[in-house]
């Protein structure tokens, strides 16, 4: 059994990382050529890590299941990336970014990791600009910033609503340079099927070529997982269709502890569910809350008239609108953190004020911003500020310039013009703060097995602030892991290449092959998606935005039953030795079902509300989340023991030496 040693360096918070880097072991350039590293996943974390490790001189093998590393799901991130540059001179600093992130995470993240993240954040922006990432700029030619939820400064850098794409293409270009040099060997359309552990150390993976179905053995001195989050356990989420937990789950079953699986982010501004056959949900960037005001009607009769399509939202007078975030949280208004905004939307909809046919939608309204920007532009250009037609036109141009692609996306999906009528939005599963437990070096409890980006748990506590995922992915991949992994690999300079004909590789490959054969021979009656949808429904109904003891207990029972049924009755067409998407999906859903069981267990054990984890038993009189610091200031770290919900709990106590634990208030 591994022990939980976070390996946080001693010394003052602000000096930990610098001192640590000065004192860890390095591998000399000639020896780096003797060392192989596998990186699974090519998003912001995996892509940046692969590029940097190759630049340093290691031999890198990188894997992605998509047809190109450029398509990893980081590409879909819209709003921006935080960095403590203080270009706006509004009082930002490394400490303030650190403080906001720990507070935003509801005091369930690790101080030292978060401080390091804030510390390297500024380098990310420098690095990306040097790579030719086209961030938004002001007329003076300098970088522009905007605000995100849960903070009182403007520290978010952005490229319209496509920041993730531009940052990922930056990392992809850095990878391409190394692929061209032969330092990265890229395996597209390959899926990791298992981690191979030899003598207690991660020494390789079993991968499946998704085009030919061939099973491959790949060895290395260390394995890095940058395989993203597990939001698709809910079936409907903003994640890509292929996003999955399998790599992390395989690592868990091979000895890596899984931390805080129940910490899930439900994002407040997504396009509401439209029909039973929907396959995925679409996010509308949080950046929209810079200018959009969220409301529902004050009167029930207006709600009913809207649902019956007898009334349009634009016909409801100002005094009959309930801008509930501005009402409840005057200090932060529409820019409260995501967990708070999501719960507030649920509260209004549960109370019967939801504005679409399903009763699960609220308005996000740009009319005020269009008028404000229109007047401002008219003033600057010396035009008539009282000319409403002109003001509307100018205002819409400003909004189009800021959010054009998001508005277009909305219009294509919903078939309504958000420049003319408010958007309808509702919360949806978006990001998972939980993940593989890692120490300060980003190593899991299996030596030589690392987890970076969304795949690990360390930086966002119980709730992630907007524009912090991109920051963490690139920080881990460009600036943290490449240093810390050297300390581990320095003991491997004489090891030589790891053979792939060991009994450990044999048995791992055998298990993988048997499972694949089982699926195609099972001859059940329902498709993989059938089970995935049912899992998603249990998760959303019982482990979603509000959770309680009874629901969580029954979720565990239902998921167990679903697991049995899945293995008995799943139907996978085709064979193992061909391109077979259903077969790939079957493996992923099998793992999601197991994770779901652990997820519910974790949510049940944490009998407090914190961040995105809201336990109905633990709330204040006015319905805010009530933390229980005396009993739950720890990381729940789960050791696999055979049955997912019978995992063994290990607690890593969270110690706050630099921040006082307070009730998180955005009022």
């Amino acid at each position, binding site marked *: 059994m591994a022990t939980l040693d976070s390996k946080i360096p001693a010394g003052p918070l602000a000096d930990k990382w610098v001192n640590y880097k000065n004192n860890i072991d390095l591998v000399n350039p000639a020896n780096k050529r003797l060392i192989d590293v596998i990186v699974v996943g090519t998003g912001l974390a995996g892509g940046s890590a692969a590029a940097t490790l190759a630049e340093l001189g290691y031999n890198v093998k990188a894997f992605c299941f998509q*047809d190109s590393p450029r*398509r990893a799901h980081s590409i879909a991130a819209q709003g921006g990336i935080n960095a403590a540059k203080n270009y706006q001179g509004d009082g930002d600093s490394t400490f303030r970014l650190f403080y906001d992130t720990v507070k935003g995470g509801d005091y369930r993240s690790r101080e030292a990791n978060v401080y390091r993240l804030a510390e390297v954040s500024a380098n990310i922006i*420098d690095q990306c600009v040097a790579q030719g990432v*086209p961030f*938004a700029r002001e007329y003076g*030619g300098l970088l522009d910033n905007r605000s995100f939820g849960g903070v009182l400064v403007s520290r978010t850098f952005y490229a319209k609503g496509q920041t993730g794409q531009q940052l990922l293409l930056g990392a992809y270009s*850095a990878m391409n340079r190394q692929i061209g040099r032969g330092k990265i060997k890229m395996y597209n359309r390959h899926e990791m099927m298992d981690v191979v552990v030899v003598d207690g150390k991660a020494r390789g993976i079993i991968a499946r070529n998704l085009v030919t179905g061939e099973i491959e053995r790949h060895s290395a001195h260390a394995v890095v997982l940058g395989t993203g989050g597990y939001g698709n356990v809910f079936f409907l989420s903003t994640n890509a269709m292929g996003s999955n937990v399998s790599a992390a789950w395989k690592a868990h079953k091979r000895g890596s502890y899984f931390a805080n699986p129940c910490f899930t982010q439900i994002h407040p501004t997504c396009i509401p569910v439209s029909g039973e056959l929907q396959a995925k949900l679409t996010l509308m960037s949080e950046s929209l809350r810079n200018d959009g005001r969220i409301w529902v009607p004050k009167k029930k009769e207006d709600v009913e008239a809207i649902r019956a399509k007898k009334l349009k939202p634009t016909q409801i007078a100002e005094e009959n609108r309930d801008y509930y975030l501005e009402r409840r949280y005057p200090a932060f208004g529409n820019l409260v953190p995501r967990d708070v905004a999501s719960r507030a939307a649920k509260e209004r909809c549960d109370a019967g004020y939801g504005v679409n046919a399903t009763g699960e939608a609220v308005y996000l309204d740009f009319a005020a911003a269009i008028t404000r920007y229109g007047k401002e532009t008219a003033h600057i250009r010396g035009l008539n500020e009282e000319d409403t037609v002109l003001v509307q036109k100018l205002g819409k141009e400003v909004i189009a310039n800021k959010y054009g692609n998001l508005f277009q996306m909305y219009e294509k999906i919903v078939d309504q013009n958000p420049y003319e009528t408010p958007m309808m939005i509702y919360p949806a599963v978006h990001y998972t703060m939980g993940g593989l437990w890692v120490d300060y070096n980003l190593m899991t409890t299996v030596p030589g097995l690392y987890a970076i980006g969304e795949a690990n748990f360390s930086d966002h506590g119980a709730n992630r602030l907007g524009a912090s995922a991109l920051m963490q992915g690139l920080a881990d991949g460009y600036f943290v892991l490449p240093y810390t992994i050297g300390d581990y690999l320095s003991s491997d300079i004489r090891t030589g290449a790891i053979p792939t004909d060991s009994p450990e590789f044999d048995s791992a490959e055998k298990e993988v092959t048997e499972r694949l054969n089982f699926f195609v021979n099972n001859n059940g009656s*329902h498709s993989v998606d059938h089970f995935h949808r049912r899992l998603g429904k249990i998760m959303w109904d019982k482990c979603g935005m509000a959770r309680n003891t009874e629901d969580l207990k029954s979720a565990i029972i239902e998921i167990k039953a679903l697991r049995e049924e899945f293995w008995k009755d799943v139907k996978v067409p085709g064979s193992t030795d*061909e391109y077979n998407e259903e077969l790939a999906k079957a493996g992923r859903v099998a793992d999601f079902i197991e994770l779901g069981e652990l997820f519910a267990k974790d949510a049940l054990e944490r009998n407090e509300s914190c961040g995105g984890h809201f336990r109905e038993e633990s709330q204040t009189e006015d319905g805010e989340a009530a933390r229980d610091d005396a009993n739950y200031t720890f990381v729940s770290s789960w050791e696999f023991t055979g049955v997912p919900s019978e995992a063994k709990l290990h607690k890593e106590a969270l110690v706050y030496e630099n921040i006082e634990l307070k009730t998180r208030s955005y009022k």
Partner: protein
Amino acid sequence: MNLKLKIWRQKNANDKGKMVDYPISDVSPDMSFLEMLDVLNNQLIENGESPIAFDHDCREGICGMCSLYINGEAHGPDRGVTTCQLHMRKFKDGDTIYIEPFRAKAFPIIKDLVVDRGAFDRIQQSGGFVSVNTSGNTQDANSIPIPKADADLAFDAATCIGCGACVASCKNSSAMLFVSAKVSQFALLPQGKVEARDRVLNMVNQMDAEGFGNCTNTGACEVECPKGISLDNIARMNREFGKAILNGREK
């Protein structure tokens, strides 16, 4: 809605392939095109037939994974969208819909509607980057002001998602729009100017080696591009290429 689908089926790269008819009923106009295919696939699987293979991932028009040539147009009849953003409300009850893969010599078919766009990666690997190490020890991000107009143009070029619609739409199967978008992004930014000459030469050489055709200024690529990448980028690339040849120095 009830529809008649005619879909290209091809077991693998060596198979000859053919169009197969699939009737589908009760399609909701609010469904996306790929959700409609999901429903069809689910029916095929539960009836013991082989589902239709197609590429897709983000389903919000940004990853560039989905393709499909629908009724003779890359990403279908709507403008400014990828196939995953196309909704069934663009079709009428009783329509016949032809669904084919992106066809080009440089995009070999893997299965059914799935093609291999690895050529795009190889073009990027030949020069689609700025040669700067990821050490973080670069100069401050604001030390070189960039005119907003240039930054905006660079951004517009950089929004290319690498889906390959330009190639599929072009009668010559040219990849000029794709290549020129990357060349332009870097040519417009001071960080990319240093290597501009070698970049354009290397990327164009690799493009030719992959077997893409030439540009004859038809403009179909620009029309079908889901991200609205402008033909101006091709003009800019030609200018960069010309400059590179004229300023030729020993490599």
